[in-house]
């Protein structure tokens, strides 16, 4: 809908609010997703800030780099960056009107997320067997395990939700009559997916490397 017609429609119904989103003229949904992500970012930011505070006040915080290891997580980081690229490729193909390619790249993105969660399950199992628990561990401060499982778990849930979201979007792209009809929805999905990647970049740095 063009700006002129939507404005006319709004005034003819006596609406006070503008029919178009002022910050994201393409859609209100995009603004909605950005506001949700800003709220979600406050959640992650608070968790990471609390992590930093508890770590700084602890006398026996284990060296995360030595306890957790970073080989697998470095590969997982790379995997998420790759899945961000397949996400933008999916949107690019949809913009060019190629639904089949767009769906294929959406599937690749979902697959990347699923492998990520699988790797995380493997990592958790391995660490739990070595004695890292949510309420204690053999290396030092018990909060080390608490924060580790809480923050990586919270992020893992976001990835799991993202995989379901992406699979649902493949259905939406299939059902909509024209590729352009689902462009905006896939773009919004992309915002969420890239945000999950962005958060992992932070989590990887603050919880594994520092």
């Amino acid at each position, binding site marked *: 809908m063009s700006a002129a017609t939507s404005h006319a429609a709004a005034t003819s119904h006596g609406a006070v609010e503008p029919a178009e989103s002022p*910050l994201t003229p393409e859609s209100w949904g995009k603004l909605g997703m950005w506001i949700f992500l800003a709220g979600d970012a406050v959640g992650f930011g608070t968790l990471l800030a609390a992590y930093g505070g508890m770590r700084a006040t602890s006398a026996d915080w284990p060296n995360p780099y030595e306890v957790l290891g970073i080989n697998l997580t470095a590969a997982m980081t790379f995997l998420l960056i790759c899945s961000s690229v397949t996400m933008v490729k999916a949107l690019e193909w949809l*913009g060019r009107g190629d639904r089949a390619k767009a769906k294929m790249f959406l599937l690749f993105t979902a697959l990347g997320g699923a492998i990520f969660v699988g790797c995380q399950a493997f990592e958790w199992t391995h660490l739990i067997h070595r004695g890292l628990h949510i309420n204690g561990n053999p290396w030092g401060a018990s909060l080390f395990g608490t924060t580790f499982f809480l923050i990586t778990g919270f992020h893992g849930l976001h990835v799991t939700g993202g995989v379901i979201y992406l699979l649902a979007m493949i259905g939406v792209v299939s059902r909509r009559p024209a590729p352009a009809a689902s462009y905006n929805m896939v773009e919004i999905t992309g915002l969420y997916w890239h945000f999950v990647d962005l958060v992992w970049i932070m989590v990887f740095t603050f919880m594994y490397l520092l």
Partner: protein
Amino acid sequence: MAAESHKHPNYMAIFWILAILTVVEIAVVFLPFGKIVNGTMLCVLAVTKAALVAAYFMHLKFETRTLALIAITPLTIATLLVFVILPDAFFVDHKTANVKPAPAGAKH
């Protein structure tokens, strides 16, 4: 149409920069400059990578400035929170350590 309204950035270039910065991050861990210098470098690298993802993959660079302000607010809040919590790390008498459970017989 939305697809043509803004130019697509070179996504592959961003991908390679992110991949290289990740390798640099892992290399920084092994540098012998001490916790503070290494930590600062890691924070700068992480924020750079996050900013690249937000600006190009999430198209924030091509959105209105007000939307960018909304996106930056959480980072500001989290950074402020760190400074609110940090005094505890330096001005408390003793840092907390794991308290070993008392032996069963010591209960009174």
